[in-house]
């Protein structure tokens, strides 16, 4: 009986095994049959662009959104009165929702004539009422950390409201009325809107191209929570980009996962070629690279520190030649209008123990500027994807004076640095054993290494000064720099509008400048020059003023001007029609609104990278002789 049973079981087991094997073979075979390589499209999803990046969209409402992740979605789905001349890298202003505009002789009144064909994707036309509502709304929500205080401040009455102490998280009706009565934005007729400024502000048109001035559908907003001055509209924060005038519309936003926009089939202008753009959120760079190489992503965000994962190192570092190291990739490096990273030195910082204020000493600051190894930073940390810092105005922008900057720039010189530090020490700016902490915001790899580099070079000088490096999360970092608690911190500025007035006050005006205030210096003479430059209409005079300010900033060495980065665009080569414009919040995907498409082709190149096992083996094998010796 027992034997019989045993054999019965093993027969059954055998049968089960055979069945399992058959099922597995059939399954795998079936799968292969279904997905035979030749039957698959060579370019995956040719009508959909997949962008894999990091960072989550914060808010969809253009009136308050002030981060690039939100900005790029707004740029695809919403439009402003005027925009840049596209396609191309130009920052010249061109018509958009407004087909033309007039400027009063005193430069204070702008009259915009709307394009009568312009309509929202729900079919309703764009009216002057919508424009007024949109701009008033952005001012009246008045988010102090949103874009309005930077960009809309010159509209008549806006400055008072935006600088008002009690207008945020609180409806201050008196202030609201004061703003509305000032009549900054007026409806002349259904297709004409007039904006009055408090001064002849030359860059005004440029500010109107920023997403904060995007036109929203008044009826829609009113139907969904309307406007409460001083507060967000939560519905708009979630859904604003669903109904806009742009070539795309939002169809899905799953936080921490993806944003999907689809082509607006009802678009009033030239429709987009791509049917859909998907922005995926993937935090790990390695995972993003894998997705790109595998063809699951068409475009990815790649930090400069990972540049040599995609392009040839030697060719790039020796002759600035961009040669992708993997076939099937397309990589572009373009100059940007971003001024980053730079070390801001806080002149008001006091050592909590000794009470010394080393950074208030000019010689000390010169020492710091000479101690930073710019070339090593640019070559080995950001892999050559930057040029040395040029002061507040980025190259290519009005007001940038290359000759002047070259003559003023600091270079890495341990000898000079030592000399200046010793001078400062002799003057009592600090004493031996002084420790200063460098701060950078969590997760920024280039900044982390920049801090370490400065730390190492200062340590090598042997001047009795030690730097330490500390990371801080972004909000804490902001709060502490604002409170002037940090001695040395990274600062950087990305463009809102294409004018030096977006930059120079920030770095130089000790009264209102975001960084100048944090660095604790204030020179009324310079402030006056900055203000004067903003409204000066003669370009030559304006340029001279900016030259003066730039010279002063370099001479005082309040800031170590480290670098101006290059934009790195990494895509599969089937993505066609891409162009770079430094004003885009999302340079990788916004060209989709201007004719970018995916080419269908027959020869897909699979991108391979060396098997990891081999690489690890290659790293371990050289150490094997040690073990062999030990064993013997």
């Amino acid at each position, binding site marked *: 009986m027992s034997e019989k049973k045993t054999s019965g079981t*093993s027969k059954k087991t055998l049968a*089960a095994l055979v069945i399992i094997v058959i099922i597995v073979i059939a399954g795998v075979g079936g799968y292969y049959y279904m997905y035979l390589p030749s039957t698959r499209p060579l370019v995956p999803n040719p009508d959909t662009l997949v962008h894999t990046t990091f960072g989550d969209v914060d808010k969809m409402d253009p009136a308050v959104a002030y981060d690039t992740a939100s900005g790029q979605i707004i740029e695809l789905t919403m439009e402003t009165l005027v925009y840049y001349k596209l396609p191309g890298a130009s920052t010249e202003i061109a018509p958009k929702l407004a087909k033309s505009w007039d400027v009063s002789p005193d430069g204070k009144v702008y009259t915009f004539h709307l394009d009568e064909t312009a309509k929202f994707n729900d079919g309703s036309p764009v009216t002057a009422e919508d424009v007024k509502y949109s701009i008033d709304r952005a001012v009246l929500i008045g988010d102090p950390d949103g874009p309005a205080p930077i960009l809309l401040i010159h509209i008549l009455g806006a400055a008072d409201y935006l600088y008002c102490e009690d207008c*945020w998280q609180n409806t201050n009706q008196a202030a609201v009325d004061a703003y509305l009565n000032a009549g900054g934005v007026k409806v002349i007729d259904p297709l004409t809107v007039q904006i009055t400024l408090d001064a002849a502000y030359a860059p005004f048109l440029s500010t109107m191209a920023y997403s904060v001035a995007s036109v929203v559908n008044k009826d829609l907003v009113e139907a969904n929570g309307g406007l409460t001055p001083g507060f967000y509209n939560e519905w708009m924060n979630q859904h604003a980009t669903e109904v806009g005038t742009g070539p795309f519309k939002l169809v899905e936003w799953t936080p*921490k996962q993806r944003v999907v926009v689809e082509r607006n089939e009802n678009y009033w202008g030239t429709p987009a070629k791509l049917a859909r753009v998907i922005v995926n959120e993937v935090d*790990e760079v390695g*995972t993003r690279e*894998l997705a790109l190489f595998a063809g*699951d992503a068409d475009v990815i965000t790649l930090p400069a520190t990972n540049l040599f994962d995609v392009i040839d190192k030697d060719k790039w570092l020796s002759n600035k030649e961009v040669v992708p190291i993997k076939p099937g990739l397309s990589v572009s490096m373009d100059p940007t209008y971003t001024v980053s990273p730079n070390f801001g030195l806080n002149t008001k910082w006091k050592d909590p123990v000794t009470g010394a204020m080393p950074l208030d000493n000019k010689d000390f600051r010169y020492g710091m500027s000479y101690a930073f190894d710019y070339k090593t930073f640019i070559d080995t940390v950001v892999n050559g994807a930057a040029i040395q810092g040029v002061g507040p105005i980025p190259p290519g922008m009005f007001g940038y004076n290359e000759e002047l900057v070259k003559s003023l720039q600091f270079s890495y010189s341990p000898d000079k640095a030592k000399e200046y530090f010793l001078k400062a020490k002799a003057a009592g700016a600090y004493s031996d054993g002084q420790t200063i902490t460098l701060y950078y915001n969590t997760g920024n790899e280039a900044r982390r290494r920049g801090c370490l580099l400065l730390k190492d070079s200062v340590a090598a000088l042997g001047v009795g000064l030690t730097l330490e490096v500390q990371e801080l*999360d972004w909000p804490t970092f902001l709060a502490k720099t604002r409170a002037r608690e940090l001695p040395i911190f990274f600062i950087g500025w990305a463009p809102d509008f294409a004018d030096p007035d977006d930059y120079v006050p920030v770095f130089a005006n000790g009264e209102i400048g975001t960084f100048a205030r944090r660095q604790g210096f204030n020179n009324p003479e310079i402030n006056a020059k900055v203000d004067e430059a903003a409204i000066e209409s003669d370009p030559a005079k304006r340029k001279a003023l900016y030259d003066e300010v730039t010279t002063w900033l370099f001479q005082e060495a309040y800031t170590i001007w480290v670098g101006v980065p290059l934009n790195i665009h990494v895509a599969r080569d089937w993505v066609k029609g891409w162009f770079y414009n430094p004003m885009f919040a999302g340079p990788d995907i916004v060209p989709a609104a201007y004719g970018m498409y995916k080419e269908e082709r027959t020869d897909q190149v699979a991108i391979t990278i060396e098997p990891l096992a081999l690489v690890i083996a290659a790293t371990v094998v050289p150490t094997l002789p040690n073990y062999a010796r030990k064993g013997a």
Partner: protein
Amino acid sequence: MRAKAHSSSSFFCSDCSATLLAQSVFLLRLVSSVKLRHYVIRRLLLMIPVLIGVSMMTFTLSHVIGDPVAAYISSQDVKLSEQQIQRIVEAHHLDDPLYVQYFYYISDLLRGDWGISRTDSDRPVIESIQRYFPATAELTMVSMVFALALGIPIGIISAVRKDRPEDHATRVFSLVGVSMPVFWLALLLQYAFYYQLKIHNLPNLPSGGRVDQFVWIDNPLHVVTGLYTVDGLITGNFAIFFDALVHLILPGFALSYVFMAVFVRMMRSSMLEVMRQDYITLARSKGLSERVVIYRHALRNAMIPTVTVAGLAFGGLLAGAVLTETVFSFPGIGRWSVSAIVRDDIASIMGFMLIIAVVYMLANLIVDLLYAWIDPRIRLG
């Protein structure tokens, strides 16, 4: 006597399915029994003091050690004026004595006001939890299944072949899991099963996320429970169901490999103990084959202590999810909490802690019930 190598192809004994059926009938009877209801109620009541303790802990961390105002301000509020801070302080009674603050803190928690998640576009913390928790629940449950399905047989092999090469091999295999940084494993898995297969145009596993975006766009899911696999099944959306399942394989395995060792360890030692019991000798004396002795007589008994550690391991899984979700871009509370930590978002971190503590306790309660189900001495005694 030498244990016979058993065929691993048939893992359960022949009539286990019938036994399982009978057991589930028992479970139903059990849950409906008055005694058990009392037991559950008593257990739930016992959770209350612990929950109070847990809330005191989060209160201490966020209000005493940390800055309480931070929990109520959004990411955009860094420029708050003194008046506005005063308003928050008043609204949440932050200037009162600590015990009064605690009282308000508790009532806020009970009302569902857990603060604002700066990390998650300034949504209320409770909403973020509702949004992200189902993904984590799905992931941890799948990992638990993987960990049990791998850990128990490995533990059995390890025990049955004690001190033989199989034992050493399986133990090293499981201990390597416990000692391995999970994200490292995760990246290796992605590399092998997603990337290498993908570039060779072979069927591959997805690198991350919960469902493929294109599958989702073609088959939008009506979300009911938030567990995509369950939702896919109950709404008849099988495309999503399969896709969600496929997306769970790699993160589920990465996470389970780390915690498998817990089960291997427990299964091995309890199996060794059970195999020395007298009733095993009796079973052998009945002429039962080694396979039947192990799977029918020893396994059930050895499972009892293993089940109890499953509850503890569940906590470990929740913690491990933090790192695994980050690497796999899996939108669960773990990934959310990491972003919260990076931004020092104390409200989100505390919300995360609270929910984890509650889930952990519930998991242990379920384990206790399971325990009663497996062990007839408790079930009927």
